[in-house]
């Protein structure tokens, strides 16, 4: 399990999960976003791993707890248990793996079945866009699918760090927007979120 040390205060703590078929590059998307690292080979994720990163969005500090999940079909029941409490989902497919694109429908159904989909923000990500010679899914197909489900869409490359930050920032902005709306409607207790501004600042004002 990975953790990024971060002593900064934050305004919101949100849970984001990264899902998608095995081998689409979920772990590398996370490594690139959180640690600015990419590795050609890495061990397949068994179960779950997670990283933490705090980002500034619209003047608010958002602490993202990002869960990297296993993609193999056999881990679906395990993955479903991680959906609980998630406010954001990065749904990933690989542009060089047509099957992973075709399985996006299944992943979306899984999200609908296991979350309150109105409260959960999604981003559809077509990874490995740098591998143009092996491309099996066009950008238009990705866009069409995203429009069909009304989800923002990015073609990314974890290798060349293309659109990785943009994807997470887009998701983060919409999460904050949802949280603010919920708070305004006094619906905040329904969400599994933690607004820690007061608490953390009290700590900082202590004797030490």
């Amino acid at each position: 399990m990975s953790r990024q040390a971060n002593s900064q205060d934050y305004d919101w703590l949100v849970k984001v999960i990264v899902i998608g078929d095995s081998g689409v590059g979920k772990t590398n998307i996370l490594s690139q976003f959180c640690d600015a690292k990419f590795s050609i080979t890495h061990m397949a994720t068994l179960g779950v791993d997670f990283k933490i990163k705090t980002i500034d969005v619209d003047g608010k500090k958002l602490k993202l707890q990002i869960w990297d999940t296993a993609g193999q079909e056999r881990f679906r029941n395990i993955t479903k248990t991680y959906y609980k409490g998630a406010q954001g989902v990065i749904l990933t497919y690989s542009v060089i793996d047509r099957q992973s694109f075709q399985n996006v429908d299944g992943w979306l159904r899984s999200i609908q079945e296991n979350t309150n989909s109105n409260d959960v923000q999604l981003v559809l990500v077509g990874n490995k866009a740098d591998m143009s010679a092996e491309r099996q899914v066009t950008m238009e197909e990705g866009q069409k699918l995203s429009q069909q489900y009304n989800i923002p869409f990015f073609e990314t490359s974890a290798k060349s760090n293309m659109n990785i930050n943009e994807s997470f920032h887009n998701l983060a902005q919409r999460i904050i927007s949802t949280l603010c709306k919920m708070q305004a409607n006094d619906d905040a207790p329904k969400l599994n979120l933690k607004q820690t501004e007061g608490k953390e600042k009290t700590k900082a004002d202590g004797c030490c």
Partner: protein
Amino acid sequence: MSDVFEELVQKMSLKCLLILQLLSQLYAIPNKMVQDFEKPQRVCDYCYRDYLYYQCLIKEQRIQWNTKSLLLCKFLGEQKRIIKIQQPLELSEKQNIEKDILNGRSDSHLLNYSIREFVTQCQQGLKIEQIRNSIMRVLELFVANNPTIGYCQGMNLIAIICLCLADEEGAFHIMDQLFSTIVPQRFYSSSSGAYLIGYYAEVYFLQEIIQINKFKDWQILMQFIELQGPSLLLTLMIQVLNISSLLVTWIQMFQIQSFIPIDKALLYTLQTATLKNIDLMVQFILNNITQKQVALGQIMILISSINQKKSQILKLTKLPPYKQILKRIAQIQIKMQYINNINKE
């Protein structure tokens, strides 16, 4: 939870750095800690002991990648082994295996320190394609022969260890015996709606042991095992134990034809990790385990209490509600299998 775990790991690493010894030769690709690979490397007492153990093992047991070692008899006995059937492999299974092997996701440099060093040494002099192809062939043969189990991530690591101890045929037979007689039923279940159902049962079983025996920080351990269970159990502790502890555990597992040594090794690791920094490299780890709270008698008491309270325990399940009944039946069956195994012992 992760903070606690990472703190423990850091403490262990610090201890490793404090007690230094010179190591004559390393084989694996160095990690970031190694500044100059050409110079003799420094390792701690624990790693050095582990190193000496498997150096001796490699020499005495004639261990080499994709070669029948003398250790193979400890796993399979002396009987002749013949592969009788070979069925065609499903395309999806073939693709899943290829994804994990041909893309380099099973290369030795990705393994943990001790296993990495051992495996790299066994593979010395071979081309990466040869190594990957042998892993592929073993897994494909295993899946063709066991289509109901299929390929699950984690099996690639098991195949790697098997190929260090035997040739492709022997590695297949080790895996075949492992999955047919030792690993709990439906542990790697590929049935839609009941994926890994046996694994879930095992996790609940271990959580109950942790809770009933009141391990230190048992609540944290229960969460930890729930999150990290797949990487601990589905790999049969390959990425968790060092090679000496792993081989002792596996040999014990084959000798008594039971999964219990893995349970014991896991519980012992978790318990000692939370209590204090105990030398987990001790070769006879299992002897120590029996002296601990996870002794056999207690497991039996636990299992009977599990069966008595099964309805209560099953309420704790966090699996999706569908197929719940089927899972409950399977869990009870697996618990009964444990009782049978213990009775046999």
